[in-house]
């Protein structure tokens, strides 16, 4: 009884701590500002239907990159052309769906991807003043919030072997004044920190030479100097300081190469032999638990309300206890899912590949599907949330859901 009480108290504290770290507003990079797919107090619709589609804007070409939201801007990238070598950055008004600007660039690096992927697979990132688009071809482009070019890096020509013929998908993250990109393939692999203001490389790390589609995660510290960026690969997880790339610690227990680690209140949930929870203690890390039956497929895990939520390869959503990894409940959705779900206001929003959206009400002992909507378009991107809207893109459209 005492043990149950202690556990309950701990879950409550954990939940409160997570809740206090959440703020409504922007969604400035892959899986949101905190790279954890959770947003605080957005008042999203819990029933998705035609009446909650606020607008639908046409997009050029193809893309798997997710939308990001900065104030009243929602931004997304695409690639077009026979060789997918035309790169697009687009900005729309979050409220009206009107296109604010559209800039195009020519890829310098190799653009070949598997037919399911597209050159525009990585999600953009922004610090609120600048926006960075990254592509499978390793073209890295930074503009201001009006689409005026600030710098351009052709990492595909600077490192011509750092490419994957199936396509690259790692989304860059911003930690303070540094943009961190992971460019890892069988033939060449590195991660680098780029000065967001100038586009010049601050540091570069050699990485395990193996195909890797994961994206970095960020643990935001009190200062830029104390923040950590987590680089995942088949070898495990490496924490680096974003300013200089110095390695703080390594977890060498192996990890997945598609779903990425997520962080909640200092605990890291790594897709590693299922899910492995790691606790950061100062400049070290220790393993808390491993749950082999929480096995994420492509979607990255999401942690919410004391539960680690995972979508497996059969389209089953599983909730594990953040304290010990024990599975609490399961719910069969219809997969497969390429995108990572998002959680807002006690509800999980997941889009499967064929374009069916699910809203799952999250409760301590169960998850319940409370709404389903077939969009009739393939959805492979992870949605973004901001300015009261849920944004998702297909190849053809960018769509906003919000309460009528």
């Amino acid at each position, binding site marked *: 009884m005492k043990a149950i009480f202690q556990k309950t108290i701990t879950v409550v504290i954990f939940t409160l701590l997570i809740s206090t770290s959440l703020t409504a507003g922007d969604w400035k990079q892959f899986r949101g500002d905190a790279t954890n797919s959770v947003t605080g107090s957005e008042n999203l619709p819990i029933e998705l239907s035609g009446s909650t589609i606020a607008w639908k804007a046409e997009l050029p070409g193809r893309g798997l990159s997710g939308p990001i939201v900065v104030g009243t801007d929602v931004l997304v990238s695409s690639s077009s052309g026979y060789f997918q070598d035309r790169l697009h950055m687009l900005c729309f008004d979050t409220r009206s769906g009107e296109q604010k600007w559209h800039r195009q660039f020519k890829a310098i690096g190799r653009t070949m991807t598997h037919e399911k992927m597209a050159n525009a697979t990585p999600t953009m990132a922004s610090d609120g003043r600048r926006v960075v688009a990254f592509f499978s071809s390793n073209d890295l482009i930074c503009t201001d919030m009006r689409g005026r070019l600030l710098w351009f890096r052709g990492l595909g020509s600077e490192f011509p072997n750092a490419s994957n*013929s199936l396509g690259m998908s790692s989304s860059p993250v911003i930690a303070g004044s540094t943009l961190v990109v992971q460019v890892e393939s*069988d033939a060449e692999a590195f991660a680098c920190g780029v000065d967001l203001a100038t586009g*010049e490389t601050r540091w570069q790390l050699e990485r395990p030479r193996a195909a890797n589609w994961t994206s970095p995660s960020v643990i935001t510290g009190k200062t830029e100097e104390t923040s950590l960026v987590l680089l995942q690969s088949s070898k495990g997880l490496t924490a680096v300081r974003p300013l200089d790339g110095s390695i703080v610690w390594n977890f060498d227990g192996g990890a997945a190469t598609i779903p990425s680690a997520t962080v909640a209140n200092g605990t890291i949930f790594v897709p590693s032999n299922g899910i492995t929870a790691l606790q950061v203690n100062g400049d070290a890390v220790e393993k808390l638990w491993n749950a082999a039956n929480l096995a994420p497929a492509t979607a990255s895990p999401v942690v919410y309300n004391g539960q680690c939520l995972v979508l497996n390869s059969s389209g089953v959503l599983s909730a594990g206890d953040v304290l010990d990894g024990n599975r609490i409940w399961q719910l069969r959705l219809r997969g497969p899912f390429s995108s990572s779900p998002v959680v807002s206001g006690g509800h999980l929003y997941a889009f499967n590949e064929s374009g069916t959206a699910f809203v799952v009400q999250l409760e301590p002992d169960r998850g319940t599907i409370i709404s389903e909507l077939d969009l009739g378009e393939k959805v492979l991107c992870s949605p973004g949330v901001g300015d009261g809207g849920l944004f998702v893109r297909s190849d053809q459209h960018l769509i906003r859901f919000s309460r009528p």
Partner: protein
Amino acid sequence: MMNKRFDRGRPQVFAALLLSFFITAPVSARDFRDAVDEAVRILATAKAGGQGSKENQQAVITLATAGDKSLMPLLMGFEDATPEGENWLRNTFEQIADQVRKKEKQLPATELEDFILNTNHSSQARRLAYESLLQQDPGLQKRLIPAMLMDASQEFRRDAVSMLLEKADAAAADEAVSLYRRALSGAVHEDQVSRIAERLRAAGEVVDISQHFGFVTTWNVVGPFDNREEKGFAQVFAPEEELQNSAEFKAEYAGMNGPVKWQVLQSEDDYGIVDIAGQLENYKGSLMYLTSSWDSPVQQSLQIRLGTPNAWKLWVNGKLVFQREEYHRSTRMDQYVVPVELSAGPNQLVVKLCQNEQTQDWAQKYQFQLRVSDSAGAGVLPGQAVAQNVYAEEDAR
């Protein structure tokens, strides 16, 4: 100190000059042109590695201040621009074109159309001009595209082929064959060529796709050599040593399974696939050397386009031009594009092709396809200086 500051702030000075030109016109038109040209030069020479981005941003301000008078100089700047520079020029052009449209003004149609039609200009710049002008002149497509079947830009060629295919699909049988033949002459993309070939073959016509694309189909091959644990990729075997030292190959070597000799391997595939696994054997954990000679009538800059799911190295006339150690991550035609300088006379092409020991069904291919093309992707055959086409002269007439 003042001089240093002045140097660093040169683009700002240009912007100030331009501003004063508009306000009081105290500077000459020549100063104005010089300022625009210098800003274009700065962008066109944009460096790799993100260096000089602040200076580039100032140059953009200079050009934006000059407004639509910068548009044509920006397009001209593509001529010798770096790949990064092309993107700086493009972005600045788009910004200014947007400004012009917002003011409900027109882009300079005559100048842009002349620029598009001048094939001496950069393909990218011409396409940018075309797409920009198309927004205010939707009739441009029908007016310009049909004559662009043999254009240096693969995008213009694709559009021209598409228009011909529409006509051909709707035409009577005899006329359709002629239109498909004509479309084929300009087609450089696999999907269009395969569609045309299918239609022509259905009509009883003979189509040599391999020759159309310029695939190299006859190779001398020797192997297998040892690539177990993928160690052979970096190892220099006897043919490779001879390639680097004497360029003359012996008749026989010690291979991984015993003595090996050169033998001729001919591809009969439409897309030039040389299939080691199918035509010889899928030697797991092995590598092969393949060589072919390509005669060029003149010294010329061309492209070698290669596709393979295997690790590979490519030498041209004894010089290693690219290498890639990736296994079974998919393959397609034109997967790799390698710019090469070919000499007049015979050019020696050598490929080192490596197979690993993966056991999955999808990891059993042991093959490559290699072709020689111009920059638009049109196939170039031995003995040709550029892609030749009977319709080119007709179009010119």
